[in-house]
């Protein structure tokens, strides 16, 4: 009995420890915070976890931190897990001082009350492109600003087009004719992505919006015409039906391999395209149905925000960092190295002149539209309907008009 008892004692201790551990752990979560302390460190969270963006953003943050007299404690998380991390942190009240968000997510997070309006810190919102501001605005208050933004356009392979005697298209008719002519053997005329995710929706928006389509109600003539174009291109064989499952990176790979003469894609692909020295490419705006229509492209990019951490002194310092990231010099510098576009329209001409490769994109950003501009937090649901309709129409399950009607009614 005695020896058995002695053997059991460590076990009993272990059991008590096991039971007590979660209690202890949960107690550690809430660290006291007072607003009177002087701020020496600012925590930052973003999703630039890959090089070279990681370093570019890191350098800009460090410089801004030095200017504001604080050290930056930065955490980078993979893009896919950022939102779940943010939600987790908002329930445990451990949000960082400065938070980066993908622009279509901003309204969703602002609606929870987790972000502070930037007007509280007297941050100027002058000169920003209207699309950029609408992406950062929730219920008439600006919550986030993007130093640089992006959008999508039509890339074309100069050599293939010259060989076939095709000029870059600017209308839908020209696009269909060019794509058909450029399709031969292993090579498709055009590549885009129409996969069942928000990326598929994003790539369709330029044709839908430029033709006057509206995301509030997709069951319209204008949107049906746009979807008809996408459907015809696949039905004619000018675009591989693999588009239904491609990502934008796959589209770029097709273009790089010479298997697609043109592609719909964004400026972030430029570094990989430039790596292949033999590839000569040009960029034009995505064609419109009739000459004279304005191209309305969707706005991409990340906004920087100041979460409601409850510590006024820290929030004020965080706001300084956000303001600094959006300074003219930082916008120009980051845009150049990251192949993105400065979000202030006042910088556009200077930037386009210095970076001719990005001139088309710079032009597009002036009129680009934010995905959440009209629908706000309702955007994810509507974006789902749009890609559902695209998939139904491209697979031939329904005509474009029917597919849009069904999806809108869901």
């Amino acid at each position: 009995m005695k020896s058995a008892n002695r053997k059991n004692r460590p076990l009993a201790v272990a059991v008590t420890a096991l039971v007590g551990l979660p209690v202890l752990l949960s107690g550690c979560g809430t660290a006291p915070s007072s607003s009177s302390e002087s701020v020496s460190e600012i925590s930052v969270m973003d999703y630039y976890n890959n090089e070279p963006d990681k370093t570019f953003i890191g350098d800009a943050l460090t410089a801004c931190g030095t200017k504001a007299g604080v050290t930056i404690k930065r955490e980078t998380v993979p893009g896919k897990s950022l939102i779940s991390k943010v939600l987790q942190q908002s329930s445990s009240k451990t949000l960082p001082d400065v938070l980066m968000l993908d622009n279509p997510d901003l309204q969703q997070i602002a609606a929870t009350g987790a972000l502070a309006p930037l007007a509280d810190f007297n941050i100027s919102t002058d000169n920003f492109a209207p699309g950029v501001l609408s992406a950062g605005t929730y219920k008439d208050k600006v919550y986030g600003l993007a130093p640089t933004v992006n959008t999508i356009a039509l890339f074309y392979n100069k050599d293939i087009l010259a060989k076939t005697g095709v000029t870059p298209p600017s209308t839908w008719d020209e696009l269909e004719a060019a794509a058909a002519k450029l399709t031969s053997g292993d090579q498709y005329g055009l590549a885009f992505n129409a996969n069942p995710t928000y990326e598929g929706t994003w790539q369709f928006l330029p044709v839908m919006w430029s033709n006057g389509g509206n995301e509030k109600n997709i069951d319209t003539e204008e949107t049906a015409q746009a979807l008809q174009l996408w459907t015809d291109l696949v039905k004619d064989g000018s675009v591989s039906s693999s588009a239904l499952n491609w990502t934008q990176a796959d589209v770029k790979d097709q273009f790089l391999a010479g298997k697609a003469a043109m592609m719909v894609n964004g400026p972030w692909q430029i570094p990989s395209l430039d790596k292949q020295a033999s590839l000569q490419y040009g960029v034009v705006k995505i064609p419109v149905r009739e000459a004279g229509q304005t191209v309305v492209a969707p706005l991409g990019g990340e906004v920087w925000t100041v979460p409601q951490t409850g510590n006024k002194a820290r929030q004020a310092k965080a706001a300084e960092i956000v303001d600094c990231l959006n300074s003219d010099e930082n916008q120009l510098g980051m845009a150049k190295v990251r192949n993105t576009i400065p979000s202030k329209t006042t910088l556009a001409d200077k930037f386009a002149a210095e970076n001719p490769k990005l001139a088309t994109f710079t032009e597009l950003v002036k009129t680009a539209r934010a995905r959440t501009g009209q629908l706000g937090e309702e955007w994810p649901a509507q974006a789902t309907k749009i890609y559902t309709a695209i998939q139904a129409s491209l697979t031939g399950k329904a005509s474009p008009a029917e597919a849009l009607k069904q999806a809108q009614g869901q």
Partner: protein
Amino acid sequence: MALTTDLSRATPKGKTGAGKAGKGNAIPAARRGIRQRRERLFQWLFLVPAVVYMALFFGYPVVKNVVMSFQDYTTATFFTGEAPWVGLANYATVLSSSLFSTSLLNTALFTVGSIAGQFVIGLALAIFFQRKFPLNGILRSLLLLPWLLPLIVSSAVWRWILDKDSGTLNRFLGDLGVVDTGVPWLTSTSLALIAVVGVNIWIGIPFNLTILYGGLQEIPDELYEAGSLDGATGWKAFRHITWPMLRPVVSVVLVLGVVYTLKVLDIILGLTNGGPANSTQTIATQSYALSFAEFKFGEGAALGNVLVVISLVFAVLYLRASRRAVDE
């Protein structure tokens, strides 16, 4: 060791105690009472870790998920903690959605197709490896590879293999002259589900092979020897000896397989993301999309619970099957 010394010490004590019978009878009884109570206490303490673990990591998520399915649980809930009670509204929305019947049918086809393929191929391979031949062990361990690869890696590789224009499979079939043009494995509404089932069969074979092989090893050789004397060889031996002896293992493999397959998510997300036009959308992928793409956590939880109930039916079957296996 401790147990034996304990016993040897206890025995003489017991004897002396019995010798003084009558006089000190009350004292050992009381001592025995304390001893019993202490033993009870230790028995409970031994249970505590398991109970705490189950409550924390199984009980809490399940209860939370059930509660969530009755709430309007959105992104704002995480910050404010407010989740208005909506009763059965989430279930009504999810079950009346036009997508639900599609997802349910796809889930059924996916599960039945995967299980049938995995089981038949797994059993055939298990019987094949029963024979003694060189490299048997090495080949058998190589077959475990699909099981060891991260699912997201497998699905990425299969996405390449099944690509319509430059996929290896289409190239291979083209060289054989079986097909002229690329087969749109993952982008045709009629083929995508078949392709996804095929990949899932590939992933599931090692599990079936391993368990069934183990079951086959348990069957005594004498039965086959006796059977062969009576003329039962080949198919007859399988029909009358192998199959009846393997039955308990088979039921366990099938029921576990169903539960695993019902909840498959990463393979489908990696291969098709539920497309094209929802032709590979299952209840699991639909529930994931509702919660993590559209941020409708309440509806996602409701649909998740529907899946849990379906799994539960098979889990109960499993428990009954395994109990019968023990009884036998």
